[in-house]
């Protein structure tokens, strides 16, 4: 395979950028409450071979759907146009540069104008090998009024090997299109995971990005959604179920750059045992983005007395005629709720589990795609079976 010249140059620059950027410290707002120790990748090397399988249904004419490398060869021009156009802004600039310099495997999906892909496209990533870093990339572009959905699964080949995955997604929803993306992170408990998601929503488009975290000893999710055109709508959804000593660090950014746009964020964390979560969200409404509706909700369900939840729900509003709200709560299951179920013959431990399950399910219900919702529910149940 021959790498296009522009791409080789880009990677070389990215490597230099990676080396020049400083390591984050907790003094930086974007790493406040974060666990910097997890960023020590000493002894880790990029994996030699990716282990990714694509399940591609019969696709309408014109749809391009192929592994990232193949696209680099066959659709170099499209990639040049869309590949990692923006520098991430949520703290992992250094690791995004590392990803750029080492990207290997993943999905390239292009849906032309007015084409609807009904069946979801499924991608399976399996982390394998000890002390290996994988750098999968997902690039999805929808043309005018196009429609597509993608299910991205991350798992480990076995329970022992400590892996590291630095994944970047670019979701570009063209005018009036509908783009739904669902990532299920279920890697083993010795691995670490960094996911950097960037969604761009053009005029009249609807983008939904859902991330489920049940695996990894430490996961950092950075999700940014930029609303570029009137009538754009973005749903940012997440469901996390950390247990044991798992730590999940979530940073989100809803950027309203055009008037008459709306975004809705719902993050549900149910924390078991000694789990720890950090949620830091920001809604930014640009000066001219009047008539913005933006909502941000993070709910933490504390299942044990040793769990820790940190929330930093932020707003920056520079426009007029906006409706914005954010809310964050941390609480446990009330005795009344347990009592209600017990009165109906359900034993307490089962009642607690049912309520926690229902709590997590609320974010899943908003995906609005049956296949993806079912996959997410199954992953949630897999996690609960271990608790």
């Amino acid at each position: 395979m021959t790498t296009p010249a522009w791409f080789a140059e880009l990677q070389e620059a990215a490597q230099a950028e990676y080396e020049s950027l400083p390591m984050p410290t907790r003094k930086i707002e974007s790493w406040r409450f974060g666990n910097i120790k997890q960023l020590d990748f000493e002894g880790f090397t990029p994996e030699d071979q990716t282990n990714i399988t694509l399940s591609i249904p019969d696709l309408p004419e014109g749809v391009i759907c192929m592994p990232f490398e193949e696209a680099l060869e066959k659709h170099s021009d499209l990639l040049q146009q869309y590949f990692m156009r923006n520098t991430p802004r949520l703290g992992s600039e250094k690791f995004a540069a590392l990803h750029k310099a080492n990207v290997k495997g993943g999905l390239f999906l292009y849906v032309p104008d007015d084409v609807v892909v009904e069946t979801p496209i499924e991608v399976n990533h399996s982390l394998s090998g000890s002390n290996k870093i994988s750098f999968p990339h997902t690039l999805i572009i929808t043309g005018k009024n196009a429609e597509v959905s993608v299910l991205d699964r991350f798992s480990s080949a076995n329970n022992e090997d400590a892996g590291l995955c630095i994944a970047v997604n670019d979701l570009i929803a063209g005018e009036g299109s509908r783009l739904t993306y669902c990532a299920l992170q279920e890697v083993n408990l010795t691995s670490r995971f960094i996911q950097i998601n960037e969604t761009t929503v053009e005029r009249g488009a609807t983008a939904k990005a859902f991330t489920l975290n049940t695996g990894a000893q430490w996961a950092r999710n950075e999700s940014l959604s930029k609303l570029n055109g009137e009538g754009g709508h973005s749903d940012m959804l997440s469901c996390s179920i950390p247990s044991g000593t798992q730590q999940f660090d979530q940073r989100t950014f809803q950027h309203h750059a055009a008037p008459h746009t709306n975004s809705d964020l719902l993050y549900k964390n149910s924390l078991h045992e000694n789990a720890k979560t950090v949620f830091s969200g920001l809604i930014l409404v640009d000066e001219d983005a009047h008539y913005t509706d933006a909502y941000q909700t993070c709910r933490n369900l504390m299942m044990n007395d040793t769990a820790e939840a940190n929330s930093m729900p932020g707003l920056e509003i520079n426009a007029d005629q906006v409706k914005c709200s954010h809310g964050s709560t941390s609480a446990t299951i009330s005795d009344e709720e347990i009592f209600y179920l017990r009165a109906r013959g359900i034993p307490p431990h089962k009642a607690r589990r049912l309520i926690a399950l229902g709590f997590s399910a609320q974010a899943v219900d908003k995906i609005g795609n049956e296949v993806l919702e079912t996959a997410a529910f199954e992953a949630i149940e897999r996690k609960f079976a271990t608790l």
Partner: protein
Amino acid sequence: MSYDTSTIDQETQDAISVDQAKGDFSFPENHKFDAGVGLSSDTVDYISNVKDDPDWVREFRHKGLKTFLDKPMPTNWATKDLENIDFDKIRYYLSDGQKPKRSWDEVPPEVLETFERLGVPEQERAFLAGVEAQYDSEAAYSNVKEELEKDGVIFVNSTEGLKEHEEIFRPWFGKVIPTGDNKFSALNSAVFSGGSFIYIPKGLKVKHPLQAYFRINSENFGQFERTLIIADEGSEVMYMEGCTAPKFETATLHSAVVELVAMKDAKIQYITVQNWSSNVFNLVTKRGMAHEDAEIRWIDCNIGSRLTMKYPGVVMKGERARGEVISIALANDGQHQDTGAKMIHAADNTTSNVISKSISVGEGRSTYRGQVHIPKNLKGCKNNTECDALLINSHSKTDTYPAITVRGNQHVTQHEASVSQVSEEMLFYMEQRGIPEAAAMSLAVNGFINELAQEFPMEYSVELKRLVELEMEGSVG
């Protein structure tokens, strides 16, 4: 129907400047002691010499200076505007060398006239139990009603407090807010002067409020008062502070440290109406420590200053302690009100409540910054935080940055924030009923803060509403 919200008409401008003019006057300087311009260890020694500090205070100051110089500006999270403070151009100590007077008759005429114009003696006669009036670095007047003195209430300035009442003062001084808490608490520790020391004896409930008024008269001046209030077991006190400064061309710095200690069952209410002129950097650290069953309430209203950074806090150290912050901020053109609250739960069954309402007018920016912390091994802690922001014009800005840490599953926290504006429908409705636009706007805004304004003592809430009315008038042009 549309409103041109970009201009402020002349009438409004007049209305606003009338109000600002209340504090916008100054007298020629008459200082016997002047620490000069800039800050060094000589400045600190000069202040210590003039005040005849005991050795432990002198040491405390030098340690403060070192910490101040070592600490970076917090611009990693705070506004870059902080970089515009030129610490080498500020005068750190100015006084006429007089002791605070017990009677207004003995106060120098221009100082008396200053406070007369600000209405301080009049308020004292009307409803206050005691008053301290600070002019630049030192208190010019300090008096407390005789019967309170007989009951054992101490209400003096900090210099007198640390000298005459060391046995009560020293154990708590710098304990609620350590010198190194932040760069500005360190600066205050180095050059503090003035402020109040209050002690309320066991079981005494002081009916009328005590008041302090802080006045800056001199240009390029930095005011660094230090207040320590100790309410002994079962006592209650309400303390109010007001402040103004003339509008100078150059920046003025006000950086206070206020520490409150509420012993078992005690209750402290601390009320601030901040109306500094728009050239003042107001960087204040305020924190209270509430012991078992004690309650500390900060009622904080910020209308003036160029940049205010102030996050009153309560450390709930004893079981069932309560902490509350009620905050109103109004940011007009050229102003940034960066305010909030800090609630540290350090015992079981402690509860805290934060209610913040901010209004941004013209190009004003208001920010809520909050911290709620519930550490390990506690149970039954509750926090409620509500932040509402009102944007008046298309260039007005508002931000919210809370941080909430909860460990364990035996607590309840909730945070809610909303941003809205006065709707055109609401204004239209009122105009239809013959209420002029400006008045309608003012009514809507007063409605927004009304619930909180009622938390202020009546005399203040009337004043507050009037201030808001003036600041708001005609902002919809």
